[in-house]
């Protein structure tokens, strides 16, 4: 009997499988789709379409230091430097079809859900136009109300039906509702397992090295409709529980401070950011990522599925976003918060100042902001990041002292 794989081994194996399967499908003449990161993958999974995720791909390209040639290619085509760097990397890749990471096949169709931003609509429109391929759009209206209204749920459901109709036309066969039910069950279980594993980070000291979330995330994006992802997150959970039992952690140094990381990682500087935080014993124990893919609904409950996809944090109103961060900080016992003012993400940035003020008012936890970008390495300065973290450490230490005196 072979020895059980560690989560790290499993993660690498599954990532490889994800890219290989897409390439093989393309070679065999099968369909490949590109999808936004929190789109309802259930439909393509049901129809056996291999789905690739440009945001994930761009993040990996950025993390491996290969963003610049693709960014420059897009800029040469007229894409402004002010636009999302994931989009610029992907639109550059679409033409160059060569990058420092896995080369992915071009799509036969695309699926776009704007529950994380409306920028995606524009980006995907351009892919559809340039490649002359069908686009499936799931428009999830921004929730100005705290809860998703029934009118919005009905609208999204109507689009699910339209997506099924489009897929039947593209695939030339009827939609398989039995398989759909199965995929929905798997997806929900994957989401539950993911959430369970990530929530273990709340333990003091945290068994999780917060930066590992950025690695695990790749799989909850790509494979949350496949049973392998359940296996992976179960393994992650088992390892974390084992660490808790032994009073140990993935975090390599003593956990001096626990913080919430707001926003997307700065992929090109992941290692720098981690080392800077580690040097002060700062572990990221809170982030919005666990919640982002906790898409829970009962199988065959299309209203529930619509509501789940519409409730993704970026799509909720400011009051609910404030509550989410406040709860993260409280539940994971954070000493501070780091806000990434991500040059690529207007939706996250343009509410962030008010978010910071309101979260601080509710938690009293000190915070710092740094200027960065998810994948454009030109929009980040190491020195600024280091200075801000140093300032945060001073504030957190001061607050700890005061709290100890009380």
């Amino acid at each position: 009997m072979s020895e059980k794989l560690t989560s790290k081994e499993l993660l690498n194996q599954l990532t490889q499988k994800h890219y290989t399967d897409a390439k093989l499908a393309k070679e065999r003449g099968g369909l490949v789709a590109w999808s936004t990161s929190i789109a309802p993958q259930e439909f393509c999974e049901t129809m056996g379409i291999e789905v690739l995720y440009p945001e994930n791909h761009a993040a990996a390209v950025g993390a491996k230091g290969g963003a610049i040639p693709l960014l420059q290619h897009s800029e040469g085509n007229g894409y402004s430097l002010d636009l999302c760097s994931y989009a610029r990397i992907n639109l550059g890749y679409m033409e160059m079809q060569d990058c420092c990471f896995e080369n992915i096949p071009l799509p036969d169709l695309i699926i776009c859900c704007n529950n994380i931003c409306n920028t995606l609509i524009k980006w995907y429109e351009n892919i559809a136009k340039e490649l002359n391929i069908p686009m499936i759009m799931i428009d999830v209206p921004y929730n100005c109300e705290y809860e998703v209204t029934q009118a919005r749920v009905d609208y999204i459901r109507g689009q699910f039906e339209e997506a099924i109709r489009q897929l039947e036309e593209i695939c030339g066969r009827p939609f398989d509702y039995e398989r759909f039910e199965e995929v929905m069950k798997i997806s929900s279980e994957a989401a539950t397992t993911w959430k369970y594993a990530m929530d273990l980070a709340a333990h003091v000291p945290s068994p999780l090295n917060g930066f590992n979330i950025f690695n695990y995330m790749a799989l909850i994006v790509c494979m949350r409709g496949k049973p392998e992802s359940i296996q992976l997150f179960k393994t992650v959970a088992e390892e974390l529980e084992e660490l808790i039992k032994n009073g140990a952690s993935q975090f390599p140094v003593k956990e001096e401070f626990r913080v919430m990381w707001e926003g997307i990682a700065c992929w090109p500087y992941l290692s720098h950011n981690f080392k800077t935080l580690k040097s002060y014993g700062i572990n990221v124990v809170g982030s919005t990522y666990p919640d982002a893919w906790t898409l829970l609904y009962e199988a065959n409950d299309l209203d529930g599925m619509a509501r789940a996809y519409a409730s993704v944090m970026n799509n909720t109103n400011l009051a609910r976003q404030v509550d989410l961060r406040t709860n993260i900080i409280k539940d994971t016992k954070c000493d501070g918060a780091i806000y990434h003012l991500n040059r690529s993400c207007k939706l996250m940035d343009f509410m962030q100042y008010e978010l910071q003020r309101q979260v601080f008012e509710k938690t009293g936890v000190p915070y710092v902001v740094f200027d960065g970008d998810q994948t454009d390495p030109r929009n980040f300065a190491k020195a600024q990041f280091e200075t801000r973290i140093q300032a945060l450490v001073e504030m957190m230490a001061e607050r700890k002292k005061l709290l100890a005196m009380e």
Partner: protein
Amino acid sequence: MDRLNTLLEEINAVVSHPAQVVKKFKEETGKKVIGCVPYYCPEEIVHAAGALPVGMWGGQTRLSKSNSYFPAFACSIMQSVMEFALNGVYDDLEAAIIPAPCDTLKSLGQDWISAAPQVKPIHIVHPQMSHIPAGIRYMETELEHVRSEIEKIIGEKITDAALNQSIEIYNEYRQTMREFTEIAAIYPHIISPKIRHRVIKGAYFAKKEWYTAVVKELIGELKKQPVLKWPGKKVILTGIMVEPDGLLDLFDEYRFAVIGDDLAQESRDFRTDVPAGDQPLARLAAQWALRDCCSLIYDPAKKRGQMLIDMARDGEADGIVLCMMKFCDPEEFDYPILKKEFEAANIPLLYLEIDQQMQSIEQARTRIQGFSEILLG
């Protein structure tokens, strides 16, 4: 020419002093004023309530307080709208309708709640999949929400009959404005780019029935004038808007006539009529489904490029000016596609950056001058 000049002066007074117009309206009628943040607010509902809908397209100001909500890379319209809100410029408004077709507007709508609590926000989120039945039904519920919010403000019901009547008034206004843009193309020696812009902009601060009458009379006066051969070049403008006025003066200085536009503040707003019918909200939802060729409306076929190419050919334009609102994602994503299509169609294109807060127009001058030389070359 006297009557024509008088009409233009009347319009100019409205555009130059919107705050006075609002105050006067409130004093004379005792009715409410409701702001309409871009884009595509259902103004007819405000009108049917007897209130005055007022366009909120920002303006030239010094940005200072807005920095506490927006970093520097937000578009200048929303920056100045926020600055005005924080400075109390909108305090005469009872409420502001805030749509959410882009990420900046979603944020503005939320930030507004703490930034300007004195002006009630009325949120509306238009469907992007407006061509399917579920999209139209959803749009109706959004419109119903706007109607009920305004009813709360005025303390009265807005009847279907009143709404249908307002729709007719607005359809007439839209037809009149379209006719004006056609006439303006014939009389560029009288209707300069700046005057053209101001005639269109004035409608955002006036009761539409009055404004339509003024513009109709203006059209009549223009038609009496001799048609002269235009010695300069002809262009079509596309983008969100063209301001400040100094920029429009440059077009005049370099002898460019604006013979048509696809600006969100201008023709995009009035190019689609509300279809006939009995149910006013269904009619308004149907109008939304008909709107297209706009960077803020989902279109995987991206028909905007071909529309502009057709406009340029039909109007015998010498070129297209893409007025790029700085930091506007939707427009910036359309640009590479448009650029490619115009190149293939052999239509000269000028990319002109728009920032309402631009301190100097000299950079724009260089670009407009350069474009003029290319076209003359």
